[in-house]
């Protein structure tokens, strides 16, 4: 250990053969002559629990984008953010060059395919960065032995990741708005754009909260980053694919607009939790298939609450409340699971 050899105060042999009881002067001055290490007390300001939690949240938000870490940690978030902004940039160019100055991207859906894909990648890659690393390195006892409460840790992480997802979703929304408004003529045109933006931002908020909670809850299941990333990616892609598949099958079997029974031959994966929340899922497989995936459930809620742009799933029609309930179930299970997870982590 070369570092130790270089230390100016190596282990004094005096302690080894003669374990003389150490006197306990409560002031450093008493033995300062021998061991003047200049220990200084800290009598400055100390932050309370809420401020510590906020500091943890800020630290985690930075790490969600790889800030304060190496270059490698920044690659995925930066690329993801860049792709997420592309539709807004395309829109800005289109608006500027077309004669009508009409936007080509809608605020409330943005571009669904891009959003689903990019958010899945971002969450799968970065949620483990926030929670799995700490589990892996067993650093949690150090947090729990500090003046915060056990619940503060998952809540600070959740807040940080919701903010990170908000940045991923809402910044492109704002770029979209900016790109359109800069070419708008007249206050009424600007007002129309602003009125379109607000629901778009609210949809983004809903996406950020639900997706961040699900991502963190899944990531907290494993301290191994690869497993955590795999779990999240598989969950999001599988449910998404399944929802779309079922929706297509239902549409084909039943034809457009006709109530259809749920095809029983699809197999178990479209299982219980989806249909248990639905009163009687007999005729509307096409409408209900979207409940399986968080993305389609969120989109269903958007359409239920008045979103007019055609989305990634057919309009839930009268089943809108089921979509609302499903989103709440996703959120509740994820947040509850996350908190329960950290109640169980041992400290020593």
């Amino acid at each position: 250990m070369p570092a130790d050899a270089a230390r100016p105060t190596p282990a004094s042999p005096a302690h080894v053969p003669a374990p003389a009881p150490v006197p306990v002067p409560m002031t450093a001055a008493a033995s300062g002559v021998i061991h003047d290490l200049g220990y200084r007390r800290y009598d400055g300001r100390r932050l309370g629990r809420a401020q510590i939690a906020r500091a943890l949240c800020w630290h985690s938000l930075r790490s969600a984008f790889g800030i304060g870490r190496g270059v490698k940690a920044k690659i995925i978030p930066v690329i993801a953010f860049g792709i997420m902004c592309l539709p807004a940039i395309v829109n800005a160019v289109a608006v500027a060059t077309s004669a009508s100055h009409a936007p080509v991207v809608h605020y409330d859906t943005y571009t669904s395919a891009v959003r689903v894909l990019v958010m899945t990648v971002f969450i799968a890659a970065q949620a483990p960065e926030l929670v799995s690393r700490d589990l892996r390195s067993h650093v949690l006892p150090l947090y729990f032995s500090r003046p915060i409460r056990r619940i503060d840790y998952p809540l600070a992480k959740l807040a940080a990741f919701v903010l990170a997802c908000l940045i991923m979703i809402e910044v492109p929304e704002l770029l979209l708005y900016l790109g359109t408004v800069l070419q708008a003529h007249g206050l009424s045109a600007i007002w129309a754009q602003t009125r379109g933006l607000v629901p778009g931002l609210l949809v983004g908020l809903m996406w950020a909260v639900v997706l961040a909670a699900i991502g963190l809850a899944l990531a907290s299941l494993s301290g191994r980053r690869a497993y955590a990333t795999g779990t999240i990616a598989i969950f999001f892609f599988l449910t998404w694919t399944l929802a779309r598949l079922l929706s297509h099958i239902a549409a084909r079997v039943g034809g457009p607009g006709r109530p259809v029974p749920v095809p029983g031959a699809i197999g178990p994966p479209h299982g219980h939790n989806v249909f248990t929340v639905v009163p009687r899922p007999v005729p509307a497989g096409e409408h209900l298939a979207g409940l399986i995936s968080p993305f389609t459930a969120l989109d269903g809620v958007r359409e239920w609450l008045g979103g007019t742009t055609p989305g990634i799933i057919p309009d839930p029609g009268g089943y809108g409340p089921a979509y609302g309930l499903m989103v709440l179930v996703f959120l509740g299970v994820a947040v509850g699971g996350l908190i329960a997870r950290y109640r169980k982590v041992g400290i020593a």
Partner: protein
Amino acid sequence: MTEHASARAAVLPGAPAPGTVIDTRALTKRYPGQVIALDELTVSVAPGVTGLVGANGAGKSTLIKILLGLLVPTTGSASVLGHDCERDGERIRGLTGYMPEHDCLQPDVTATEFVTHLGRMSGLPPTAAKERAAESLRHVGLYEERYRQIGTYSTGMKQRVKLAQALVGDPRLLLLDEPTIGLDPAGRAAMLELVSRIGASFGISIVVASHLLGELEQICDHIVAIEAGKLLRSDTVVSFTQASQVLVIEVEEGTRQLLDELGRRGLGPTAQDRAVLVRLDGEGTYDAVRDAVADLGLPLNRMERRRHRIEELFQDDEAERSEMTGAADAR
């Protein structure tokens, strides 16, 4: 059991800061499945360096968790620095630095970043956290290497980082759980030296949990020994090591003759293994033994005052106890 604790408080009239660092009353922790981790533990710890000794599973970790307010005792109460562990957990954790037994470091950050962040988590504002992180790392002997990633550190350096993060918030009490675990002899000695220096000159009380008695003996003022969740003994190291007024003599050969000779000189020797023990009654005893050995012309191997090892705490041997008591009485 309680009289040990009170006796021990009385041993410290000269302690500069009166008051109790840790105080537990009939502390009991029963886990589901009737596993009893702590059983009516009543003990008080005064300022200074205190060893908490016990075998694995003796209840050390449970006690530390309760002291930090992270675990609620089944019955009984505990307080740290005058704060109730159940009600004022946050307060206590603000005043206490904890060094866990197991690895708890992130390999891909530098020691400076790691300790600074944990300083923030201890409630320090950003600038203070940075300053104190640098100082703490310097105090534990990490200088330029603190800008390197922790993953590149040796075990000894990692233990130092663990200690630094406990120190960064300027605690009044340090709880160190097996600080020498995994270290080679040189690393152990250096870590013990460091702990003892912090206790002596930083004005911070320290509780060191360990299963290695020899280490605790070297650096502690007091020892609290627990076994199966019960208090075995709580006393000063001084009283243990000085209690023995017994001289140990070992000769290469002729132990029998020496016993007889010493008996004739009225020293009342007893045989133990290959050694001869006599009661020490002042300097004259040394001379008498020397003369006896010289007169017999025996090759003397060893003559020293016997020091009671703390290991004897764990020997439930009645004879051993009575001998200790007898030796103490003779003082």
